[in-house]
């Protein structure tokens, strides 16, 4: 036992990092939060629609167990079940906590929390603060962390960049190398544990709904230092974003949660003003194809349908890759109160008011279900032991990951409004485990020879010196866009092995050209160029993980759609049949008469496919390439079965 406070370094001031910082300070620990920019400006502020918790405020019979099932089914059964279940059971307390911290959640007539609908569920389960929920949640946690800074328990290093972990001779993480983005100084910090709450990697695609700093570089560096990276190929494409040059700005699912309808003119040549097109000549394709979930099918389903309408049916608006998202049937007052923030974004960037005219939208890269592989400590009740030091630990001992940077909560497809939840949940949940981990260490960080820190620091100093010397012909920002173009063209909504192979080669070309990059700026004050080049290098490696994972996974699961391996579920199939089928199998023979022949055939194929592919993809860095293996998924609580939303 050491007789000083336990100290950790948290990289990232988004929801996950902030939640952990607050909790760790409360437990009398010492925290340093590192971030590229002011914590308050972290990417989490972009979240619009809301955060899920089965509080059942509308007396619909919602429960955490149903939330758990919806999440698991939404993720096509690829998530470890005890973790997801624990998260869903903690969700109501998390919302009440955020409410106590002053988040301006919309309220009911009686002054309680109000909830709205989101995709992949039939319940009103999403708490929201107008349409800037993420911003409001970040501010509340940022304020609590500021309070701890004021009281001396927490310290922030804003305008600092994390470069890599310091590993001792046994491979245990003992600190982090930090780069001061203003003075250009590179130094090592000691800690009992380091946590990467560094968010998602949308910039690998260059154009996405993500913020500028979301390069995934921190997680990729951990991978190159030996950490496992899991389920990289599962990239969520959000169905509704505003097409644009620099960013594809999101139009939140809450627009549909509040009644927004998606449609195209039935006639591809119909060029009329959308408001002049009568109801009968509009094709509300999601409502027709999915009468039960309608416009609120999960995101993977909605994106595929929009893709089909635009590219297979050639029904995009005026021949362009766009469909209408229509809210004009709702009153101005209602829209301003519940969706004001996002409707203003649309107006600001297109000059068109969505309260008057249907919006034009198209799918965009949005979120990574995959991330650093992390561990967990289950208890005996199908939940998580919150004291387990295994919780959220990467495969490098002492290096933890949380938030979008980890992989555990959303399987093959994330449900809307579940990410803010998983970020805050992981941040809060893991604090106790880290405390216990520190207690279990045989050697404390003070016993580690200083050369360990000096060597790692020198490695990064040299790396940056080398980058500054790069004087080739390639502009790193142009190369980044080319990488993005490759990913957008080949590793998106619809995937096939030929294109994926093409992408693998194209990425290798980019990697070769990277050697010929020019460092555009060699100043040593507030110079973003060397950092960006290092991040670009990481994005190249991350794109390899995503692409190789996608190439090797020969199936259709959640966001990973390969038409060649679609098992073509019979139209009249009911997922309960599959449960019957498994039960009969358990008792001996499956009676052939009980099921229609095509159903039985489908179920056999489904079962065999799960046998082979219901596995976590694990990428490890070997000889400059990702080496892919597969691991079992914990499906101990609900039986994986075919998904159906119509």
């Amino acid at each position, binding site marked *: 036992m050491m007789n000083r406070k336990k100290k950790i370094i948290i990289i990232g001031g988004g929801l996950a990092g902030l939640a952990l910082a*607050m*909790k760790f300070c*409360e437990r009398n620990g010492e925290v340093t939060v590192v971030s590229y*920019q002011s914590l*308050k*400006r972290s*990417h989490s*502020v*972009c979240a619009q629609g809301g955060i899920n918790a089965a509080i059942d405020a509308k007396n619909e019979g919602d429960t955490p167990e149903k939330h758990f099932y919806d999440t698991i089914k939404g993720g096509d059964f690829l998530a470890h079940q005890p973790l997801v279940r624990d998260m869903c059971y903690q969700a109501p*307390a998390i919302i*009440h*906590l955020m*409410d*106590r*911290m*002053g988040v*301006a*959640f*919309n*309220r*009911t007539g*009686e*002054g309680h929390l109000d909830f709205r609908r989101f995709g992949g569920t039939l319940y009103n389960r999403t708490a929201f*603060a*107008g349409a*800037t929920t993420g*911003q*409001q949640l970040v*501010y*509340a946690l940022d*304020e609590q962390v*500021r309070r701890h*800074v*004021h009281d001396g328990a927490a310290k922030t290093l804003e305008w600092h960049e994390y470069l890599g972990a310091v590993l001792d001779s046994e491979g245990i993480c003992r600190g982090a190398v930090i780069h001061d983005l203003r003075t250009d100084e590179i130094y090592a910090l000691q800690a009992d544990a380091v946590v990467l709450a560094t968010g998602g990697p949308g910039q690998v695609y260059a154009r996405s709904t993500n*913020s*500028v700093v979301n390069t995934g570089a921190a997680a990729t560096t951990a991978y190159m230092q030996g950490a496992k990276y899991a389920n990289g190929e599962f990239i969520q494409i959000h169905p509704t974003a505003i097409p*644009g*040059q*620099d960013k594809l*700005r*999101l139009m939140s699912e809450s627009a549909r949660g509040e009644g927004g309808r998606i449609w195209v003119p039935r006639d591809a040549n119909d060029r009329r003003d959308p408001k002049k097109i009568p109801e009968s000549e509009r094709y509300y394709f999601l409502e027709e194809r999915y009468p039960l979930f309608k416009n609120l099918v999960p995101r993977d389903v909605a994106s595929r349908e929009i893709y089909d309408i635009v590219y297979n049916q050639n029904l995009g608006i005026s021949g362009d890759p766009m469909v209408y998202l229509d809210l004009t049937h709702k009153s101005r007052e209602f829209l301003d*109160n519940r969706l004001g*923030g996002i409707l203003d*974004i649309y107006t*600001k*960037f*297109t*000059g068109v008011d969505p309260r008057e005219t249907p919006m034009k939208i198209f799918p965009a890269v949005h979120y990574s279900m995959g991330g650093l592989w992390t561990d967990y400590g289950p208890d005996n009740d199908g939940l998580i032991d919150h004291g387990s030091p295994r919780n959220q630990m990467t495969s490098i001992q002492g290096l933890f990951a949380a938030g979008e940077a980890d992989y555990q909560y959303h399987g093959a497809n994330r449900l809307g409004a579940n990410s803010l939840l998983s970020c805050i949940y992981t941040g809060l949940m893991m604090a106790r485990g880290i405390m216990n981990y520190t207690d279990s260490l045989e050697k404390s960080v003070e016993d580690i020879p200083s050369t360990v820190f000096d060597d790692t620091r020198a490695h990064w100093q040299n790396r940056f010196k080398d980058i500054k010397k790069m004087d080739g012909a390639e*502009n790193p*920002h*142009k190369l980044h866009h080319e990488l993005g173009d490759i990913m957008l063209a080949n590793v998106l909504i619809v995937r096939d092995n030929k294109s994926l192979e093409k992408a693998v080669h194209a990425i290798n070309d980019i990697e070769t050209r990277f050697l010929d990059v020019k460092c*555009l*700026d*060699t*100043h040593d*004050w*507030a*110079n*973003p*160029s060397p950092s960006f080049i290092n991040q670009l290098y990481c994005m190249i490696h991350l794109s390899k993980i995503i692409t190789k994972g996608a190439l090797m996974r020969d199936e259709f699961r959640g966001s990973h759609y390969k038409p060649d391996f679609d098992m073509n579920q019979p139209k009249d199939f009911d997922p309960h049949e599959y449960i019957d089928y498994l039960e009969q199998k358990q008792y001996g023979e499956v009676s052939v008469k009980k099921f229609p022949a095509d159903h039985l055939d489908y179920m056999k194929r489904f079962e065999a496919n799960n046998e082979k592919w219901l596995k976590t993809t694990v990428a490890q860095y070997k000889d400059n390439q990702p080496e892919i293996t597969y691991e079992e998924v914990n499906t101990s609580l609900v039986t994986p079965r075919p998904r159906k939303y119509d």
Partner: protein
Amino acid sequence: MTEKNITLKIKRQDTPSSSAYWQTFEVPNKPFANIISCLMEVQMSPTTVDGKTVHPVTWDSNCLEEVCGSCTMVINGRVRQACTALVDNLEKPITLEPMSKFPVVRDLQVNRERMFENLKKVKAWIEIDGSHDIGEGPIMPDQDRAKRYVMSECMTCGCCLEACPQFTLDNTFLGASTFNQVRLFNLHPTGEMRKEDRLNAVMGEGGIADCGNAQVCVEVCPKNIPLTESIADIGRQTTWQAIKNLFTK
């Protein structure tokens, strides 16, 4: 109306202590281009109109949808967010300058640390007992929530302070954004319990009494926060507090 190229005149500065200089760039005009997308173009080919290759301009941005507050700068003489400044709506050539009320870090980047320090001075947070599960938050009418929500959209961008004649590079004036935070937290049932601390913090030097009522803050706020209402309200609250202090201190 849409020209092929856009001319950007950018005020640059290499370090906080070096002197500023201007450079002019031309970038292709693309549909719906905004100032950040133009700066990205400069990054891709950092050559001035005189054909000189220079180091790319530096600036702050993150969300690119006016919700993070990073990208504040002075565009054609007016302070605003660069990510929502659509090129089509701007006079050409376009001039870009860093904010003048905060120390320049480099080029268009400034150091707004002072704003965050001010949040500490007025204890802009709710003093919760802890983050453990102790049940529901306070019940609140939705109208009150709506009033708070508008104020809580403040993204610490600094537009109001850049525009304010009272706020200077070297004085201690707290400014509209800070007063608005005091009002925001004093309006919350739990936050109200520490109301006096906050009011006392804005009653000294640089406090609410120094506000010259120029009312320009509210005109430049990108989030349409009713800043002058907040200032008036905090004015009233501090008056009461001053009277109370007379009797109790």
